[in-house]
C-alpha cells in the first residue's frame, strides 16, 4: 500500500483583484480518505477546490492531484476527478436518464448508469425532467454525475446544502459507501455535523487561512483543552479520591454537583474509582465539545449555519 497523497496543496494563494481569497493554504489528502474543508461562507473553500479542479489558476503555490497539475494536465485530471459544484444547474427540459447518458459518454471507462442511479435512489426518476426534480433529487443527480466517470477523487462542494435532514443523512451514507469503494473524497462544507460524521480529517479554513488541521475528534478535544464530566455522588466522598488519579486535572463542587475535568479515559476511570469506594455517580453528564466549539475557539467567530454559499 503506498501512502501517496491523492491531493497535495502547497502554499496555495489566490486573489481576485484586491481581495485575497486563499492565502498560503497547504494540505495533503491521503488516498481513500474523506477530507473535509470546513469554514464559514467566504473563507476560501470553494476557491481552493476550484484550483484543485483546474477551474482557476493559482497565483502562487502548487497543487498535485495523483501526480497531475490541475492546469497543465487538465485533460487527464478531468478523467480521474469527478466534481459536484455549487450553483450548477442542468437543462430544465432534459430527462434524468438523458443527462446521465450524456455525462457518461464523456468518460472512457464510465460506471453503469443503473448502478449509479440505484445507489442514489434515483431509479424511479430516469424519465423525469430535470426541472420536475426536488432540490434533494437535483443534488443527488449532481452527485451521480460526479461519480459516473468512476473517478479516483471526488470533489463535492456543499453537497448537502438545501437538503432536508433525512436527505442529508441518506447522502452521508452514500458518500461512505463511495469511499468504501476506494474513492478519495474532498468535501467542502459549512455543516459541522457533516464534517464530524463523515470526515477522517478536517481543515478549518477562515479568511483564506488554514487555522487547524486534525481529525474531528482531535479538533474538538483541542478546543476544550480536555474532557469534562459532572455528576451527583450518592454519598459524600473525599476529593483526593479523584484528584490523585492521573487522568483528573481538577475537581470542583457546585452544590450537590461535582465537576471533574481531565484527559484520557476520564469517564471510565472516575466511575470505576468511585464504585470501588462504594460511591455511585448519578446524573452523569459529559461535556462533549464539538467542532463548532473548536471553530469558535480557534477563530473567535461562529460558523453560520445557513447563508449565501461562498
Amino acid at each position, binding site marked *: 500500500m503506498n501512502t501517496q497523497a491523492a491531493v497535495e496543496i502547497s502554499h496555495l494563494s489566490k486573489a481576485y483583484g484586491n481581495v485575497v481569497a486563499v492565502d498560503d493554504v497547504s494540505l495533503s489528502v491521503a488516498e481513500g480518505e474523506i477530507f473535509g474543508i470546513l469554514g464559514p461562507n467566504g473563507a476560501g473553500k470553494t476557491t481552493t477546490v476550484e484550483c484543485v479542479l483546474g477551474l482557476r489558476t493559482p497565483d502562487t503555490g502548487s497543487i498535485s492531484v495523483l501526480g497531475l497539475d490541475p492546469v497543465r494536465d487538465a485533460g487527464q485530471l*478531468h478523467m480521474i*476527478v469527478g466534481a459536484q459544484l455549487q450553483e450548477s444547474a442542468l*437543462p430544465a*427540459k432534459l430527462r434524468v436518464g438523458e443527462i446521465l447518458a450524456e455525462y457518461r459518454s464523456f468518460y472512457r471507462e464510465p460506471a453503469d448508469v443503473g448502478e449509479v442511479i440505484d445507489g442514489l435512489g434515483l431509479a424511479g426518476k430516469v424519465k423525469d425532467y430535470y426541472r420536475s426534480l426536488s432540490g434533494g433529487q437535483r443534488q443527488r443527480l449532481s452527485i451521480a454525475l460526479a461519480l459516473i466517470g468512476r473517478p479516483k477523487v471526488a470533489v463535492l462542494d456543499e453537497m448537502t446544502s438545501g437538503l432536508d435532514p433525512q436527505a442529508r443523512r441518506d447522502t452521508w451514507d452514500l458518500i461512505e459507501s463511495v469511499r468504501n469503494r476506494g474513492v478519495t473524497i474532498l468535501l467542502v462544507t459549512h455543516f459541522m455535523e457533516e464534517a464530524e460524521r463523515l470526515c477522517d480529517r478536517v481543515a478549518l479554513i477562515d479568511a483564506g487561512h488554514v487555522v487547524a488541521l486534525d481529525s474531528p475528534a482531535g479538533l474538538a478535544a483541542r478546543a476544550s483543552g480536555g474532557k469534562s464530566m459532572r455528576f451527583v455522588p450518592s454519598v459524600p466522598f473525599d476529593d483526593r479520591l479523584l484528584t490523585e488519579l492521573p487522568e483528573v486535572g481538577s475537581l470542583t463542587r457546585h452544590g450537590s454537583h461535582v465537576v471533574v475535568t481531565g484527559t484520557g479515559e476520564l469517564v471510565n476511570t472516575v466511575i470505576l474509582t468511585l464504585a470501588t469506594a462504594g460511591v455511585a455517580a448519578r446524573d452523569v453528564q459529559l461535556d462533549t465539545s464539538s467542532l463548532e466549539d473548536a471553530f469558535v475557539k480557534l477563530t473567535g467567530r461562529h460558523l453560520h449555519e445557513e447563508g449565501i454559499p461562498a
Partner: protein
Amino acid sequence: MNTHTLPRPKAQVQPPKTQFPKTPFSAARLARTLLPETAPHAAFGQIVRNQVRLAWRLPAGLIFGVGLPVLLLIIFNQIPSFHQTQADLGGLTPFDVYVPILISMVIAIIALISLPGPLVTYRDQGILRRLATTPVPPSWVLAAQLVVAFCTTIASLLILVVASIAAFGVDVPKNPGALVLAVVLSIAAMFAIGLCIAAVARSGIAARAIGAAAFYPMLFFSGMWFPRELMSGALQEISNFTPLGAAVEAIQDSWQGQFPPAEPLLVLAGYALVFTMIARRFFRWE
C-alpha cells in the same frame, strides 16, 4: 516546484475567470483545445442529441422560425396584386421580392433569437462551468448548438422555398449554386452576430432583448416593410451594408439567375469574420 517562493504579484483588478487558452492564436493549440485526445469523440454525438431534444421540447424558436414566414406567404397569397409584375420592382412580382426577404427573416430569427438565449442560459446556470470539469471541453456544447441551429435553419428554409414554389407559384431558383452560396454566407454572418450577442449579454433576458433590438432594424433594411427596390437612394445604400440587406440582394440575384455581384457577398463575409472575432474576444465561459 517552488513557485510559492516567488513574490506574489501586486494585486491586479481582474475578474474571476475560468482558465481557457485564449490569445495569442495558435492553430495547434486551438486544435488541442477543441479536440482533446482525452475526450471520447462519441460524446459530441450525445451532446448534439440532447441539444436536438431541447430544441424540440422548447419549440418557440422553431414555430416562430418556420411558422411565421409560411403564415406571411399564405397572407401574401390572398393579395391579388402580389402575383402581378410591377415595373417599380424591376419587373418582378411582390411575391418574388418577398421570398428572399422571408429567407433572410428566417435566418435572422434563428440567429438572433433562438441561438444566443440558450447559450447565455447555459453559462448563467453554471452548465458550461460544470462541463469544464469533465474531459469534454465546454466549446463542444457551443459547437453542438451551432450544428443544431444550422440544421434547423436549413430545414426551415427548405420548407419555405419548397412551399413558395409548389404552393404559391414562385419560379424555381435560376442559379441554385449561387443561391446556396448566398444563403450559407448569410447564415455565417447572422450566426456570428448571434454569437456576439451571446458573448456580451450578461443574462438570458438581456440576450433576448439585444437580439430583438437588433432584429427589427435589420428586418427593416431587408425590405420587410418597404422593399429595397422602393427605398430612396440613401436608404438603399445603407441597406446594402446591413447584413440582411446584403443577404436579400445576394439571394434575390441568385434566384433571378445572375451570379450576385461581389459587394453583397463581401459584406456578408465581412460581417461573418468581424463578428466571429469579436465573439471570440469577448466570449466568457462563466
